């Protein structure tokens, strides 16, 4: 049973088509990355998953059932733009959101305290939201989305605007949730950030799905044809016939091979010409490279 299943959904706002023919499925216990440049339809897709908007056509299933509002109590949502009441105290705010998700006030308060401790913002709990820094507000928003222990966590650009320390705190928490068997979907336009985090990804571009699958599947479709060499001395190995394209800087060459199997030969040739090699690495293409390869070069990712 898929936690989320989108079937051929379409959404148009007046004349602009935001999402077109999108289908995807998210399995339990997976970390799912919804990737794509800004304005490609990520937020529109997410909004349809949680009933904020209704698709013009196609179907949405949550927890194996056709979409119903009752299922939303099992979903935690972190919107892209942080939405908190500025004048409310942190703890009141968290209890309020907890209650909206069906918790009673006492449970919500207890869990809020526990989460604030974990997120290292316990001393801010009696403060008004507007007095807090942006990073802290984001943590509160994050807690608000998780307080009711949802089975599906949906986070729209969760890492944007977070400093590295807090971003990694958030990533650790997400990994923890996955370990508990929850399904997590997050969207991001920073593909480099999430490569190691996702089990499965979908890349959308201009409202259409361009790539979908588990990380392993996607990567296996693209051979490890990247070669990184740090060297000094003779450069004649760069003329090897298996090199499709090369970017060279002083002492560094980033190569893309037409025949991945030739990597060892290139190394052998360089050594034969007396080139000093300090680093030699065969690499898989990054998600960003895969993305650019799929949709073309001129993408402002």
């Amino acid at each position: 049973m898929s936690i989320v299943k989108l079937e051929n959904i379409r959404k148009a706002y007046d004349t602009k088509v935001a999402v077109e023919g999108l289908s995807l499925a998210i399995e339990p216990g997976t970390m799912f990355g919804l990737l794509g440049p800004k304005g490609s339809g990520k937020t529109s897709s997410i909004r349809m998953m949680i009933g904020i908007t209704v698709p013009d056509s196609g179907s949405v299933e949550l927890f194996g059932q056709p979409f119903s509002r009752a299922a939303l109590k099992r979903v935690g949502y972190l919107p892209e733009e942080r939405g908190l009441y500025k004048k409310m105290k942190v703890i009141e705010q968290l209890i309020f959101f907890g209650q909206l998700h069906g918790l009673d006030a006492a449970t919500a308060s207890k869990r809020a305290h526990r989460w604030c401790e974990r997120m290292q913002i316990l001393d801010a709990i009696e403060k008004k939201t507007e007095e807090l820094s942006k990073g802290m507000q984001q943590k509160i928003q994050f807690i608000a989305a998780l307080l009711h222990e949802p089975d599906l966590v949906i986070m729209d650009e969760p890492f944007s605007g977070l400093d590295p320390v807090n971003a990694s705190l958030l990533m650790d928490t997400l990994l923890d949730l996955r370990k508990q068997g929850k399904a997590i979907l997050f969207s991001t336009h920073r593909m480099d950030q999430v490569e190691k985090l996702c089990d499965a990804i979908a890349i959308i571009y201009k409202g259409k799905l361009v790539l979908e699958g588990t990380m392993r599947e996607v990567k296996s479709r693209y051979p490890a044809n990247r070669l990184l060499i740090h060297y000094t001395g003779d450069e004649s190995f760069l003329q090897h016939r298996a090199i499709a394209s090369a970017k060279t800087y002083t002492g560094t060459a980033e190569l893309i091979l037409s025949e991945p199997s030739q990597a060892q030969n290139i190394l052998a040739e360089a050594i034969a010409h007396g080139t000093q090699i300090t680093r030699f690495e065969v690499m898989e293409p990054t998600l960003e490279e895969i993305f650019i390869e799929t949709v073309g070069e001129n993408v402002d990712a």
Partner: protein
Amino acid sequence: MHNVFLIAKREYLERIRTKAFLLSTILIPLLMGGGLVISTLSAAKTKSASHVAIVSSNQTLAEDLKTELEDPKRSDMKVDVTAPTAETRAALDHNLAEKTLDGYLWIAPAANPADRPVFTYYGRSKADIATQGTIESALRTVLLREGLVHHGITSAEVEKLLQPVDIQSAGGSALTSFLSAYIMFFLMYFVVMLYGMNVARSIIEEKTSRVFEVLLSTITPDEILAGKIIGVGSVGLSQIILWLATAVILTSTSVLASFAGNGAHISLSMAQIVFFLIYFVLGFLLYSSIAAALGAMVNSEQELQQLNMFLVMPLAVCMFSLGVVITNPSGLISTVISLIPFCTPLIMYFRISLQMPPAWQIALSLVLMIATNYGILWVASRIYRVGILMYGKKPNLPEILRWLKYS
């Protein structure tokens, strides 16, 4: 229903805890009550308490005038009478400068004995109109009495003729009941406007802070809107009940009377209180629904200002028609205006305060208001549902009409 309650509770608590609520709850009745007390106090104190001198060679006239002026019903003046001598004027002017005297009246005999003497008042302050006015009217009375006696009418008869006339108004004083109707009218105008705008502002706040996204991921737009209107409306209702309770306490006990004397009695009938609550609820519902739609359409308070006229115009029309309603509360025009739902809360209520309209008119106004509320809420909730997720440019009319078709 639970969600509506949660939203309403949040709105209510957030507002009721603010200093603004506390201040407006205390200050508005204080200002209104204070204004009332001051006006009645000052009405009581316009009796002149000056110390004046009358300079006249005609001692009878001067003494008569003194008696008239020192009559406690007329003033609290202290009057000296002197005959004119060579030094009188200098002495009086000296007293004026020393501030031991507030003014003096110089009565110079006329050249022709048949004419009136010439009266000249020299006051220390030119602005002391009250004293001068009191002297004038006292003088007129005295001269009239003198003239009447001169024509052979007995002084007892003269006194009878000069008694002040008192018009009795059935069912309490017309002035005070009009005053209370007037105050209630403005109070209604004020709360409907204030809390209607409050709804719009709270929507804009959630829109700019994007709290909506979080709310909408669990509850429906209709639940949010209902909760918001109920929450904000309850704040208004709490405030009104506090005010009415204060007003009832003030008018039913002698607190106000002890401040301002018996003239300050403001009558507030039970019907006035009950209908105030009913019409507030209906009026607030109507105007807050419009405000909610406006709030959902715009992105900032500044943009809301431009659309404010949709709220202010109907209320302004009520304001303008007030004159007609006052002169003839049961006339055709008043009846028609009071049945227009946008004006009903103000005008029908005003009519109720002035002169109870026929029951069928009140019933009809309630039915019309409820029906209009239903329609406006239907439209507003649709605009709201779409509008809250629209950011960026303000929608034009065709776009808004298209929103209505979205379900």
